[in-house]
Each structure stands twice: as C-alpha cells, then as structure tokens.
C-alpha cells in the first residue's frame, strides 16, 4: 500500500518539541486500525523525518542560544519568535493530522470493500486457486474458476493464432490453389469466432473481467471498446493493406465502414444510457443515511445488461469480419487476415517494449 512521504511534512522545528511523544501518538493510532504494514512504514517514515529534523535542529540551535545572551535587550523579539514557532508547529501538526485522517478514511473504505468481496466470494462458493497467476486475485485472494479457465484457453488460442499466421504467410508465398487458400481463410475466421464464444462464456462468469481487458496486453487495452477492438478501427487498418480493390469493392467497403460506425455509435449510446441508469439507481433516495442495500441490489439488476453489450459488441465484430470476407476475394481475405494478425502482434510487442523500457524511478 502506498504511503507517500509527502503527506508528512517534516517540521524542521518540531525536533525540539517532544519528538518521542509524537511518534507514540501516531504509532498507537495506526496500530488500532489493524494494519501492521502501514504502521511499520509510517513509524519508519516518522522516525527518519525526525532523525533528519534533529540534525537540522542542531544546526539551528546556536541561534536561540545567541538570543539568550541578548535576552535582556530584546525580550519582544524572543517572544515574537517563540509565537511564530508555535504557530508553525501548530500548522504542521494540523496538516499531519489531516493527512492521517484522510489515510484512515481511505483504509476504512478499502476495508468495507474487502469485506464485501469476501462475502460475495463466499456466497458464490469460489475456491482459492493454487498455482494460478496472481494478476486476478484482486483483493480477496479468490479466483473465479470461469476466469481461470478462460485464461488457459486464451493462452492456447494465441498459440494457435500465431501458428495460423505462419501458415497464412507460407500459403500466400507458395502460390497454392484458391480452394486450398479458402480453407486456410475459413480456419482463420473460425478461430476468431471461437474467441467470441470463449468471451461470451466468461462474460457470464464475470463481465467486468471482459470489460477490463486484463487478459490482453496493455497496448491492446488502450484501444479497448466494450471488451475488444472497435471494428471500424480494424477496418481502417485492413483496407489500407488491401490495394488494389475494384470499384465495386471500394463501394461495398465504404458502406461497411459506415454501417460499422453507425452500429458502434448505437452501442456506445446504449452504454451511456446504461451508465446513467445505474448511476441514477445507485443515487436514489438519500445519500448519507447509511443504509443503501436496496439501491445497490437494484443497480446490480440493471448492470446485468452489460453482458448483453459485450455479446452484441462481439456479434458486431463477427458480422463485420463475415461481411468483409464476402466482399473480398479469397486471396485478399488471406492477406487481410494476415495483416490483422500482424497488426495485433505489433500491438503486443509494443506492450512488451513499453513494459521493459527503462524509465526514471517515480
């Protein structure tokens, strides 16, 4: 858990004002919320700060002592200085208290959320997956078996995908017959349809998982629209690779692009409406009274529609692919599938490069 050091403004002057007492107060309070990892790091933070402060304090010590010698001649200055120090100390103390309270609040919310997730996980009878990737353990440490199954299947799907891309490359260079090429193209198409089926299944298990795109690489997620790529975006990439097209083909592809865009807009607007509906349902009644389960339960019902959206978005992707394969010749379709596959590979490579690219530490 992050505990930014900037939240604790080191007070240069505080070193002289009962440092031990300060640590004791913060330490006890942190222990009471039962989060040992926070208290340990905070105590260390505070320790370090005060250590630094005591160093600076020692540098500043000579000044007051100088003042002492001239006490008789400048009592006003000394009082003023003392008052200023007090004000400063009080201000710093208020800041620290505010930061501490904010930390406390967010921890409390997190605790509530953790308890809820634990409760839900228990109700659904989920098991704790052994040996599975930690990426989807979330907070509660239990893994949805639907997700675990999908992850494995997707890994395998990617392997088959890469193999098929290799076959496409070979087939295009080898000048095989159109009939044979057709088979390769059909395999490629079916493979994508397989992915949509897989996604539909896991969407029933956890639609947010599909929406989040955790199973994809980061660059792919950047382009995510309702759990996958925007068909119109992919069309743009494809069409550029498919020259030369006949006039008739250009006309049909243009129509397809437009229909695709319209369908995407319709779905996007539906999603916005869903957001409005869920938000309005959640916010119904008075906020701040403490009891809110009916609203949450009703909002959950509305949220079920999200599964429909994911399915419809994939349906749109599938229909667009189908339509393209009708417009193009077999050879063009093969080149198209290859182009698409390589484009996605480049996105995945981009993600890897990004992850391993050396960056300045935060």
């Amino acid at each position, binding site marked *: 858990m992050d505990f930014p050091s900037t939240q604790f403004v080191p007070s240069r002057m505080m070193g002289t004002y009962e440092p031990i007492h300060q640590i004791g107060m913060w330490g006890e309070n942190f222990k009471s919320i039962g989060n040992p990892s926070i208290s340990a790091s905070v105590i260390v933070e505070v320790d370090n700060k005060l250590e630094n402060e005591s160093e600076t304090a020692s540098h500043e010590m000579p000044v007051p002592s100088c003042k002492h010698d001239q006490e008789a001649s400048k009592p006003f200055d000394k009082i003023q200085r003392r008052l200023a120090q007090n004000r400063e100390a009080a201000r710093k103390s208020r800041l620290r208290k505010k930061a501490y309270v904010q930390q406390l609040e967010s921890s409390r919310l997190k605790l509530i959320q953790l308890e809820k997730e634990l409760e839900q996980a228990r109700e659904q009878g989920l098991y704790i997956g052994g040996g599975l990737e930690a990426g989807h353990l979330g907070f509660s440490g239990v893994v949805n078996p639907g997700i675990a199954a999908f992850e494995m299947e997707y890994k395998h799907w990617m392997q088959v995908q890469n193999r098929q891309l290799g076959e496409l490359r070979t087939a295009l260079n080898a000048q095989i017959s159109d009939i044979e090429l057709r088979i390769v193209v059909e395999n490629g198409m079916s493979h994508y349809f397989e992915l949509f089926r897989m996604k539909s299944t896991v969407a029933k298990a956890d639609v947010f998982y599909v929406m989040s795109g955790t199973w994809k690489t980061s660059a792919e997620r950047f382009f995510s629209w309702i759990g996958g790529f925007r068909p119109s975006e992919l069309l743009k990439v494809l069409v550029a690779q498919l020259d030369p097209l006949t006039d008739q083909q250009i006309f049909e592809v243009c129509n397809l692009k437009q229909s695709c865009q*319209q*369908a995407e807009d*319709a779905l996007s*607007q*539906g999603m916005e409406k869903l957001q409005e*509906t869920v938000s309005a349902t959640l916010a119904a009644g008075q906020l701040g009274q403490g009891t809110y389960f009916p609203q949450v339960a009703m909002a959950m019902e509305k949220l079920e*529609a999200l599964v429909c959206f994911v399915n*419809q978005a994939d349906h749109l992707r599938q*229909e*667009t692919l189908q339509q393209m394969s009708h417009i193009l010749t077999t050879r063009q379709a093969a080149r198209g599938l290859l182009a698409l596959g390589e484009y996605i590979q480049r996105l995945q490579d981009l993600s890897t490069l990004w992850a391993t690219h050396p960056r300045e530490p935060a």
Partner: protein
Amino acid sequence: MQEAIPYKSYSTTRATAVGSRSPLLNFLGGGGGVVANGSESSIRKLVEENAVVVFGRRGCCMCHVVMRLLLGHGANPVVCEVEEGKEEAAIGELSRIGGGGGDGGGGGGIQLPAVFVGGKMFGGLDRVMSTHISGELVPVLKDAGALWL
C-alpha cells in the same frame, strides 16, 4: 385469453397518425404517451398499421440501441413498452401475432427488445445488427414502407 395486458404505446413523434414528418422530430424521443387498452387485438392492430414497431422493457438500454439503429436509417418506429413483470405474457402474445415472420429467436423464445417490420416479426437486436451490417436492413425497411427516400 382476451385479458388486457397493460401496454403503454407511444410514437416517437407527437401524434400517433403515420404521416410524413420531418426526420428531425424523430430525435426528440419519447413524445406524449398514449395508453392503449392492451388487448391482443389492439396490439395486432398496432403491428399491422405501423411499418416498424419495437417492443421492449421500459428503460431497457438494448431497446435504446435498436432505436438508434432504426432512427439512423430514417425509420420512424413506434415503441411499445412492456410492463415490468409482464414480459412472459407479452412474449407469448407476440409469438402468436408474429406468426411465420423472420427467425425471431431462432425458433425458440422471442427476446425483448422485439422488432416487427411490415406487420411481421422481424427479430431482436441480433437480427437488426446482422442485417444492418450486411446491408439487408434498408431494403426490408423500404419494402415495409418505413422509409420514403
């Protein structure tokens, strides 16, 4: 069997009469409501008299998507809200009215939202989406007199 099922039906333009309206009115959405008495015969009449009718639950977001698609083509669909809790009965009734049109829900159950074109059952969002992409939707709408371009 003639028991009234509460439907609320309204046109996206201000009047229920089908006539030439400016396409801009289509986008005002949710005009004045007209409560039909909801008997099967009046629903049947609704379906027969209007080129495009969409049956859906109130506030259903999928219904919204279907409407956007149809409106985008310049059609002027009549929306019929199915009352909460009465979906089963409504679907039963719609299957009876729909008869041999389209492959609504793949021969199984009709799903809401359900679209009727030219007095016949056309299908759900799935079919609207596929025909929209394949380009079949516009001719179908034209044949039913939903578009006058």
